[in-house]
């Protein structure tokens, strides 16, 4: 049976597509799935550094599309997880170097071998976005709880629908429980009142994401990170588990951490 081709997209830039792709890829691979991630952000390659694989790139997506190398040769195996692979974006060439038709072929070929093909979409609604969704059968829309990001997400949901990518699922990223409590940040329920989409998870705003990106280690590898936990849960929902989506709680203080440390409190 062919694997699932899922595009991670958003409209607005910088809301967490690449972080999400890297972490879901790693989380699914840790569940024993064979996963390949495609960086479709040509000219602005990033997934490689988020994963800490930047020094191992030989060939890239454009080389594959042009036939300079075989698809297999361009895949980089993750150093921590042997069922996880990356197909990096080209860094210097122009965005027109790959066509939606070529992307469709590449994702189709990869889906023969992998359980999941995750495509990290660039921001915007132009060629790069068209490429990213070309071979996808499912879509995850990432947004933050801000007016501009939600507005762009609505646009993307409309475009996905027009491309027959039905039933996209929403990831609400960078939620801050303290701001929610003050009434200064929209919650998942608020966003769902506005967008016609089903949710798949909420990621808290979390410093550990920046720390883990500094190190090139996806945050799902950190068992204590709240964001990592949230990504692991999304991976399990993708796998079909029916986990309730609960909003992130306030980070606990010193006592809470202590209690967790000595095992009096789970999570």
């Amino acid at each position, binding site marked *: 049976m062919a694997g699932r081709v899922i595009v991670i997209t958003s409209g607005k830039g910088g809301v967490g597509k690449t972080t999400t792709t890297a972490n879901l890829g790693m989380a699914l691979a840790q569940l024993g799935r064979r996963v390949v991630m495609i960086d479709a952000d040509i000219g602005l390659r990033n997934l490689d550094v988020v994963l800490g694989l930047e020094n191992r790139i030989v060939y890239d997506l454009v080389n594959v599309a042009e036939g300079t190398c075989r698809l297999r040769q361009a895949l980089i195996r993750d150093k921590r997880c042997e069922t996880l692979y990356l197909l990096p974006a080209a860094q210097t060439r122009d965005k027109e170097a790959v066509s939606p038709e070529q992307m469709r072929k590449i994702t189709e070929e990869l889906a023969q071998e992998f359980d999941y093909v995750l495509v990290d979409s660039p921001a915007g609604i132009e060629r790069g976005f068209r490429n990213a969704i070309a071979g996808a059968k499912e879509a995850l829309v990432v947004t933050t*709880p*801000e*007016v501009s990001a*939600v*507005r762009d997400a*609505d*646009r993307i949901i*409309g475009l996905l629908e027009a491309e027959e990518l039905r039933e996209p699922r929403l990831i609400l990223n960078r939620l801050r429980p303290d701001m*929610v409590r*003050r*009434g*200064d*940040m*929209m*919650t998942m329920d*608020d966003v769902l*009142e*506005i967008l016609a989409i089903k949710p798949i998870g909420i990621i808290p705003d979390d410093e550990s994401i920046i720390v883990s990106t500094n190190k090139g280690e996806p945050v799902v590898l950190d068992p204590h990170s709240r964001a990592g936990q949230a990504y692991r849960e999304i991976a399990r929902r993708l796998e079909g588990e029916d986990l309730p989506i609960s909003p992130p709680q306030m980070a606990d203080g010193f006592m809470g951490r202590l209690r967790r440390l000595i095992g009096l409190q789970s999570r």
Partner: protein
Amino acid sequence: MSVLQLLQRLWSRENEKPSKDQAKERLRLVLVHDRVGVAPDRLLPMLKDDLIAVISKYMEIDEAGLDVTFSQEDSQMALVASIPVRGVRRHF
């Protein structure tokens, strides 16, 4: 800042809507225009013209007094129209 100013600040902040509600209301409105694909200053006039055309089949209305606006209560957006009726057309 004087103590009085500080108190006024606190007071006005308490009376103000939470900013997330302002975000939701603005989003609902902006998405109406985004989805319909009509600029904000054109949508209501277009709607008014169409409403006049439809209602005029049945009633004589005061076109100048016609008022159509969006209003938001709770989590619902409503289109509120006030249409002064001058008379009902006889059909027999």
